[in-house]
């Protein structure tokens, strides 16, 4: 893909920040409202894919290397499994929600029943949401980018 017209490029550059903020909102409020790390990550990744389509894979590959995405993805995964292992170290069980009802962050216990919702609650859940979000963004974008770039290099299938 060699990129689309100037109109498409401009519009997608304008839309991209909004898509990104929306995705981040979905990730951050994962424990309160519908959504979570996967859904928000998919939204951000689709925003990135929009940029990829409008600017072309060669240009995007010049800006973002798949290696960097790979590092980002590994980081997300390590944070996720690291939180689980911290549960083992602090509370003695793998995957324990050790932050919940402690005196660290995300520690507020919500009132039972219908509430407005407090962002600073739910223990390790928001951290895991962010880790998974990071992973999904990097992972999905890496898949799309690598596929688009490779098929461009192969000449659209004509051997």
């Amino acid at each position, binding site marked *: 893909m060699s990129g689309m017209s100037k109109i498409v490029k401009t519009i997608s550059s304008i839309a991209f920040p909004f898509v990104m903020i929306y995705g981040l909102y979905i990730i951050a409020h994962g424990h309160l409202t519908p959504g979570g790390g996967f859904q928000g990550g998919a939204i951000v990744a689709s925003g990135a894919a929009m940029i990829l389509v409008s600017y072309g894979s060669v240009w995007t590959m010049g800006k973002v290397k798949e290696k960097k995405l790979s590092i980002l993805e*590994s980081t997300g*995964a*390590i944070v996720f499994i690291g939180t*689980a292992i911290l*549960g083992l170290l602090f509370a003695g*069980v*793998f995957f324990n929600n050790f932050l919940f009802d402690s005196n660290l962050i995300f520690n507020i216990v919500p009132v039972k029943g219908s509430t407005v919702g407090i962002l600073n609650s739910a223990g390790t859940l928001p951290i895991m949401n962010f880790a998974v979000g990071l992973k999904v963004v990097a992972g999905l974008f890496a898949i799309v980018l690598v596929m688009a770039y490779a098929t461009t290099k192969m000449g659209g299938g004509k051997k």
Partner: protein
Amino acid sequence: MNDILSILINHSPALIVAVPLFGAFLTPLVGMINDKIRNIFVIFITLLTGFFTVILVNEVFTNGIKTYCFGAENPSVNPVVRIFFEIDGMSAFMALIAVILPIVAVIYSWGFAKEETGQSKYYTLILLMTAGILGMVLTGDMFNFFVFLEITSISSAALVAFWTNKKNSVQAAFKYIVISSIGALMVLFAVAIFYGQYNALNMAVIANNIGFGFLDKIALVVLIAALTMKAAIAPMHMWLPDAYSGAPSPVTVVIVGTTLASLYGVFRVVFTIYGKQFLTILRSFGDFAVTPSLLIGVFIVVLAVLTIVIGVFMALKSNDFKRMIGYAAVAEIGYMILAVGSAISTYFIPTGTTTVTMAEHGKMALTGGIFHMINDALDIGLLFLVAGAVYYATKETSLNKLGGLSRKMKYTTVFFLIGLFAVSGLPPMNGFASKLIIYQSTYQVNPILAIVAILCSIMLLAVFVKVFHSAFLGPEISSTKNVKEVPKSMLIAMGILAALIIFFGLFPEFVITNIVEPAKNALLNSSEYISAILGGV
């Protein structure tokens, strides 16, 4: 010191899966530093996994079933909400198999994959596969089983296509992923039926509540079909030779583990989840009882004979080294399920009781079948490593283009001979030990089965003698002129498997009493599996 060990033992079920996963996530980062450091890191991770597996297995074999709950120290068991790992003798046995193979594969890969690109991803995927197989065999949760099944099938499919410039590899990988994703979706469908019926995902809870109504039968058929598809039992065996021969040899060794893990899934479904229901007596004639397990057993035996015969005949026809071993692997899987199928068809009613029991020769067949699982993993693994070594040295796998290798590759030849003896069931190798038990016990079930098994074993011997003759003996041909012995790491890996094969062959009694018997007892005792979670309900 003892405290630390007991903590490690307590958490080993989680760590066994967490360590290779953590290693897999780190491997791309470590790979950026240096190839050598990464290789050492990966070997260290597999060895660490092996260490945790050994202490867990030891714990299970001495103190019985071990459960581990993720996320809570004192989880509610009524209802069971959280994910449990439940390790009984059979799981521990499978975990041993699943952890030996990656260690060997990783050591072997050091020399084998030296010249390849994309090594970081290659090692990452091998570690992911390890974690997937271990998760499959340790988990006590149906949905968790599905997730790990997908991890293993996706990572192994990606590795089958490692050599993307080869037609065979890519089309085998596609075939493999289509088969395995359909199989996994079928498993998910069965999980959904269980969930809708019993509002539970835990295997022990499902096994406790299960009836034998229409939906349970559908779920059984779907599960068995899906898992036999993944375990390459005829008539769905076609993907296996393709995938085994298309993949790089060390990968194939680990894929053998995924196949066995699917077979473990079949055992878990048949013996544990439906264990109780299979023993209800439909009709009895004297001490002969018609139970659902009899029907299932006969069905499995028919499939097994088909699998053995197809595997052996296709191996005879084949002219490619790796493909031939692939078909031999199909035949070996046939031997395992032949033993298990004939075992579950021997339930009878002892005089003076009303419940069915497995006959002694049935138990013996089961022992043989389970013993053969670990032997198959070692034998087929060694043969594939030898084929990989031959490929590494000559870049050829077609038997027409090989010859006179024994002069140039002495050690490899010796390892091939050990593999040949083992896979065709000749003493003093491990294949003989388990096949002898299978012959003896199936002879008591039905002599024809034993005769077919022995004949096919002899034909396997003929197949591999042909390979030995054409590839290792005879004059050198032009393509094998400049052959050298393979690097040390590959020899060490083959040596580990060969040593295990000889050890298992020389001391079969030791292995059977210490490893196989607990696994067999675990399979036959499903109520213990249930009460380990539900506390004697």
